[in-house]
């Protein structure tokens, strides 16, 4: 798989036809900065903030920017349900490309150009922003990297696709992939499983190097015992796809 596509500056200029899906749970401290950076870099793009039932002021802060469409989920659905809501909205407004960006500031707006250019250059349906391809990026702890390596192997075995950073939530989807994901998206810990689902349904995935930073505020929800649960759950979910029909499109 190519890792350094030829840059095509100007694909989706100023973000016209692009929608950003920003899932946010308890991100009152960082959400405004995320929205500002997205709208500054891509003034013509739609920014869809999906507030996942946050008990804090995430929704109010996001609305106060006046530059984002805020979708308030009445109850907390978890990351998968929240992101899928954004996919459904993106589909409804006819977005050509939807880019998932975390609400905690880990995905810098200046890296989005890399995803868009990679999509234009490769014609892939999905571009995954990766910390492990060609770039020096914040790369998480050794133990997590080991887990990510196991997921990579699982995706290779079951999906026949080599994505080094399958836990990355920094992704671009074209409208074909979007229509699929609006129907099929895992509710919990969705990223690695979505890779295998998309690959087995015949979509073309491409991975491109991006620089990620440490989160602006808050902490990851996956730590301690949850990490073991996470790995078990996600590996099982991936393995189960081997027993399902290849194409559910």
């Amino acid at each position, binding site marked *: 798989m190519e890792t350094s596509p030829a840059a095509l500056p100007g694909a989706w200029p100023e973000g016209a036809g692009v929608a950003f899906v920003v899932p946010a749970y308890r991100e009152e401290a960082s959400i405004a900065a995320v929205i500002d950076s997205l709208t500054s870099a891509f003034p013509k793009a739609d920014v869809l903030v999906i507030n996942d039932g946050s008990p804090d002021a995430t929704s109010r802060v996001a609305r106060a920017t006046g530059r984002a469409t805020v979708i308030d989920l009445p109850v907390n659905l978890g990351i998968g349900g929240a992101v899928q809501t954004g996919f459904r909205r993106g589909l409804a407004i006819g977005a050509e490309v939807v880019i998932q960006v975390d609400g905690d500031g880990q995905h810098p707006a200046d890296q989005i150009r890399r995803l868009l250019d990679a999509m234009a250059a490769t014609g892939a349906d999905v571009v995954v922003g990766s910390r492990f391809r060609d770039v020096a990026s914040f790369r998480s702890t050794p133990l997590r990297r080991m887990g990510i390596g196991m997921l990579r192997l699982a995706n290779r075995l079951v999906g026949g696709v080599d994505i080094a950073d399958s836990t990355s939530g920094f992704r671009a989807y074209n409208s074909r992939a979007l229509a699929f994901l609006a129907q099929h998206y895992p509710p919990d*810990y969705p990223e690695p499983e979505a890779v295998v689902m998309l690959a087995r349904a015949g979509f073309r995935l491409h991975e491109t190097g991006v620089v990620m930073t440490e989160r602006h505020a808050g902490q990851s929800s996956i730590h301690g015992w949850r990490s073991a649960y996470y790995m078990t759950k996600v590996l099982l979910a991936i393995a189960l796809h081997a027993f399902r029909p290849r194409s559910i499109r």
Partner: protein
Amino acid sequence: MGAAGVDTGRIQILAIVGSLAALALVGRLLVRRRLREEVALLALGIALVFLVLATWRPLLEKLAFAVGIAYPPAALLLIMASGAYAMMLHHAIVLTRLEDRQRTLVQEVALLRLELEHLRPVTPPPATAGVPSEQA
């Protein structure tokens, strides 16, 4: 009488009474519409099997010996445990389905509310206390 002088008939009586009570309870819940028929069918079926085996001892013995259980009433326990497991599994299946539907409904509500906001400005909903999401 059993080997240690225990009256094994007692467990038979207990099993009969227990399964009759279970049948009566399920029936009552059904009559009061607190249980839907499709959900209750499994519970009724298990209670009925239990009642038949508890009443008809030779069948229980035949069954127990066929699967290598030396003490037939122990087969009742096995059937009870299997029944409980089947019920649990059934509930898990129903829950999964409900969760899928609920997620779609929640998404639909949020998206419809957004459409409504476009028609007329509405105040954002009060913050809800939810369980932590799975965001990494």
